């Protein structure tokens, strides 16, 4: 490598959501970090809907924040509409969701990145990896720049051999509308990694000045200043409403008539798309009897009248889009500002990765985001922060960070990717987590804050905020356990929840156990020494812990059992093929995926409990066979099922 190369510890390719978090985390851990991206004004650009969060995804956004990430702060600083989804259900499944100003978001991201002195942003397109001794040692750029690095994180999103489709044409090479695809980089990566293809799509945008709002249903956001970020208090902008309309028979007729002109249905696209982000073509074909489909019109920003037409993602040609938009009530005269399109791109099937997100076959190469077969900003950012942390920890020779499934959705996400692989773009749902009650938005900081602190990811002021916050929660919990509330004071709170008056005073915790009782009210009438407003999250945590005690305990016990299995390590290089007591399917899958623990083996589809039982015995036998006579191998503590 030439002497004129830039040198750094960690190089990050791509300035999307994954790249931003990877670069920021690495820099916060004190590594010299270089972020390469073709257009610095688009760092943290939102390719699709400018919305962060939702059910499960909102929890991930908070987890990223708890680790000191960028996403939560940038969202707080640019959100123009906020709602807590599932508010009517239990706090365990609440999903904070924010609509952001598309133009302001990248500016906020850039501002937050600029706080990091160890981070160097360079506008450059990476064209190749530099290899040496079977590992990655650097990155080469289009302008002739070479960056020498001990670890490289690739986060090139939908850009790798990206191809955009609008209608039944062959499509054009692009990474996003108006941006160039990454072809050279894709080719070098394909030399060392298995590659496959996925697709996704985006809907058209319309000019808000041409929409008849009188025909739409207005949906205001929630008042209040909910924040994703725990550590930094960004100021929240002015809020805007969203609008709802329904696409009915008219639109379906237009779509059906033009189906063969769709890239998706004309057979132009080979990659698989996500079922949960179906195009309007998909909806019409798969649900012919559905009378209508919901369409959300969402503001793109404070400085623009453009609206994002959520629900009408498409790969139909422009003229059809113009026609079908007019078939939607309220949009009869609407003008399209940007056409919807579908995009297909390369990804690397993630079973090639370790839990650290390092490629098994190429030391020093980390992958995060859409390139691993996921979809969504939060999923990308979450992998980004974990990959960035692990790249830095490797360079520093420190122990890797592997987040457990019972610890965070991030753990679920990465373990699913690495263990089960993907056969459509992967998105998080709460149903993917087996510990739904433990993984909540309100306790993300409690779960991951201490991890961040021990890794040294937080500044000293953030550490102080964390400590204070955890202390406040403990105080709230303690108050409920140690306070008795008189019948007279508790009366109104109980009555409004439909209970009769208690005959004597009761402990706050026992009153709180009753469904429907408002904990904030109870704290108020009980004369709690803490401020109810600022401790809303602590209250939610207490509510869960108190009201769902038995259930939470059951989940914790299961989590412990799982950990016992995780503690049983499967040495690398086990001769799975020779384990005759396992089913053939189990042998093949284990040999391919090479799980690192028994717990991981158990999550591989097709591996039965009896396979696992036999696996334990085979491993012990194998260990005995190799070491001296009958040395016992450490076993996980026996746990009764």
């Amino acid at each position, binding site marked *: 490598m030439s002497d004129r190369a830039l040198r750094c510890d960690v190089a990050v390719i791509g300035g999307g959501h994954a790249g931003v978090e990877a670069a920021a985390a690495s820099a916060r851990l004190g590594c010299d970090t270089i972020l390469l991206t073709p257009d610095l004004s688009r760092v943290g650009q939102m390719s699709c809907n400018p919305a962060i969060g939702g059910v499960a995804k909102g929890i991930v956004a908070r987890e990223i924040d708890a680790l000191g990430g960028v996403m939560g702060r940038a969202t707080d600083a640019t959100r123009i509409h906020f709602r807590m989804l599932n508010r009517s*259900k239990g706090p365990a499944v609440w999903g904070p969701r924010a609509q952001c100003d598309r133009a302001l978001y990248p500016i906020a991201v850039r501002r937050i990145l600029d706080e990091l002195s160890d981070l160097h942003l360079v506008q450059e397109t990476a064209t190749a990896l530099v290899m040496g001794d079977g590992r990655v040692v650097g990155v080469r750029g289009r302008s002739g720049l070479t960056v020498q690095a001990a670890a490289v994180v690739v986060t090139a999103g939908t850009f790798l051999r990206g191809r955009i489709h609008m209608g039944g044409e062959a499509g054009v090479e692009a990474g996003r509308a108006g941006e160039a695809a990454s072809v050279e980089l894709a080719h070098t990566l394909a030399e060392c990694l298995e590659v496959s293809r996925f697709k996704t799509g985006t809907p058209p945008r319309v000019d808000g000045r041409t929409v008849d709002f009188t025909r739409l249903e207005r949906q205001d956001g929630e008042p209040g200043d909910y924040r994703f970020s725990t550590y930094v208090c960004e100021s929240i902008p002015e809020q805007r409403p969203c609008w709802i309309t329904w696409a009915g028979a008219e639109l379906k007729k237009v779509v059906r008539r033009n189906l063969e002109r769709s890239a998706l249905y004309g057979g132009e696209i080979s990659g698989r798309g996500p079922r949960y982000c179906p195009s309007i073509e998909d909806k019409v074909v798969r649900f012919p009897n559905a009378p*209508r489909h*919901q369409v959300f019109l969402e503001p793109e920003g404070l400085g623009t009248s453009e609206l994002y037409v959520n629900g009408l*993602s498409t790969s139909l040609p422009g003229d059809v889009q113009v026609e079908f938009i007019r078939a939607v009530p309220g949009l009869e005269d609407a003008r399209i500002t940007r056409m919807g399109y579908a995009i297909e791109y390369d990804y690397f099937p993630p079973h090639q990765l370790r839990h650290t997100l390092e490629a098994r076959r190429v030391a020093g190469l980390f992958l995060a985001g859409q390139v691993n077969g996921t979809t969504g900003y939060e999923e990308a950012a979450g992998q980004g922060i974990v990959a960035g942390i692990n790249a830095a920890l490797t360079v520093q020779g420190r122990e890797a960070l592997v987040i457990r499934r019972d610890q965070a959705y991030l753990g679920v996400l990465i373990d699913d990717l690495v263990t089960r692989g993907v056969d459509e773009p992967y998105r998080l749902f709460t149903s993917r987590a087996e510990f*739904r009650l433990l993984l909540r938005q309100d306790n993300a900081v409690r779960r991951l804050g201490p991890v961040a602190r021990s890794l040294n990811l937080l500044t000293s002021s953030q550490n102080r905020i964390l400590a204070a916050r955890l202390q406040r929660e403990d105080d709230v919990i303690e108050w409920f356990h140690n306070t008795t509330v008189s019948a007279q004071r508790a009366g109104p709170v109980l009555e409004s929840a439909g209970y009769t008056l208690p005959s004597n005073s009761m402990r706050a915790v026992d009153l709180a156990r009753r469904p429907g009782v408002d904990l904030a009210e109870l704290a108020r009438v009980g004369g709690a020494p803490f401020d109810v407003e600022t401790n809303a999250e602590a209250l939610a945590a207490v509510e869960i812990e108190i009201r769902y005690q038995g259930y939470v305990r059951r989940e914790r016990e299961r989590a412990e059992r799982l950990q016992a*299995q995780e503690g049983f390590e499967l040495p690398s290089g086990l001769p799975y093929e020779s384990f005759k007591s396992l089913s053939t399917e189990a042998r093949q899958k284990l040999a391919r995926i090479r799980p690192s623990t028994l717990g991981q083996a*158990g999550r591989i589809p097709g591996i039965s409990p009896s396979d696992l039982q036999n696996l334990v*015995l085979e491993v012990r036998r194998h260990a005995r066979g190799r070491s001296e006579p009958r040395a016992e191998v450490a076993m996980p503590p026996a746990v009764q*099922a």
Partner: protein
Amino acid sequence: MVSGVEVDTIAALSTAPGVSAIAVVRISGPRAAAVLARVAPGLEPVPPREACVAAIIDPVTNETIEQAVVTQYPAPASYTGEDVVEISGHGGWLGPALVLDACLAGGARLAEAGEFTRRAYLNGRMDLLQAEAVVDLIEGRSQALRRMALRQLDRGLSERVAALRASLLGLEALLVHHIDFPEEDDAPIPVTHIAERADELSNSLAALLETAAEGELLREGALVVLAGRPNSGKSSLYNALLGQERAIVTEVPGTTRDALEAAVSLGGFPFRLVDTAGLRETDDRVERMGVNVARRYLAAADVVLLCVEGTRTLGTDERDFVRDTGVPVVVVRTKADLDVTAVHSGRLEIARDRALATGGTGGPEDACATLSVSALAGDGLGELRALLPRLVYRGLLGTGADSPVLTRARQARAVGRALSEVRSFAAALRKGAGPEIAAAHLRVTESALEELVGVITGEEVLDRVFAEFCIGK
């Protein structure tokens, strides 16, 4: 998620059931000694491989079950290479089953066919060829058993199970839709609707569970105990029903002193026939023990054949016995050939008095049948053979051949657990506990039914959701 993959401790009867005079229950695994401590709490420490006598108790009831010989073989020098305990007790059917049951209650899991051998192989105690030979033997035998007794009766279980699985999946899908997709085209599904679907699932689980009692009988064979006063002709009837001279018959009252047990198939259904010592107060120690054994068998019986000579009027003790026995009792009028006036030989009478006395419904299940039989001449034997299946396998005879039956206690336990969880699921939803809480119950349901219906993966649930609902924007 798969639970409990640690090497656990297993137990099983390692001698052929019911045949040998001594039955050995073997326990293997890391907790073998702990299980032994639960079932034989009085046992003093003994050196390895040294046999000693110990009282075996049922750890749940603390009742003494058996005086047995216990031997411990610590790992690795044991049959399986793990810690092994062997409990040798009296043969027959009931005693060993009670000991085994105590071991299960004490923390062991019932071993699957071939599991001891598999462990022996994996721990290097046996080579593969040897192990395979043993496993073949075991599986071969159980298959033969199944062919014999269950050939027509297990069919249909798989269809029922598939339906259960589908309905479980459907329930999960509704819940996932409810939690993960709050803002879709389909308006939120009312929780009452989800609760109703859960009720449907509980109904099918309950229906399946009802077959479990008979299913278990099918597997083990229904226990038919011959009882009566000494010399009433029990052993002769026993031999006649078996078609071979197994029990000693003499004209001396008190001939049979210990229980004798044998398997027999009547009308295609499996039975275990037990001849016992005649019931009477006696000073003879051995005979008294025999009488006690008989009482224990009677307590476990599925049907009792009360043998009464000829036309002798029933004594009060016999009447009381008929009234107080919770299972069907057939009063067998023996030695019909001797009684010239026994014109009703071979005729079956269903007496309603017991039903009336016990406040039952008066159906055949409450009834006490009377039948005249001659073990010597064979009169009435055919009727008796036809009567027994009708008394025990009533439900199965009524439902057609393709109606599913739970034949394993393990299955029944799993279905029972699942049923109570589904009920809690519906109750939680109706109480407004929130879908995420209800979901916790559904997870337990799934893991309880895992062995029966297979693992339900999150991916399958999502497939179902996307197939059923138009989701996403």
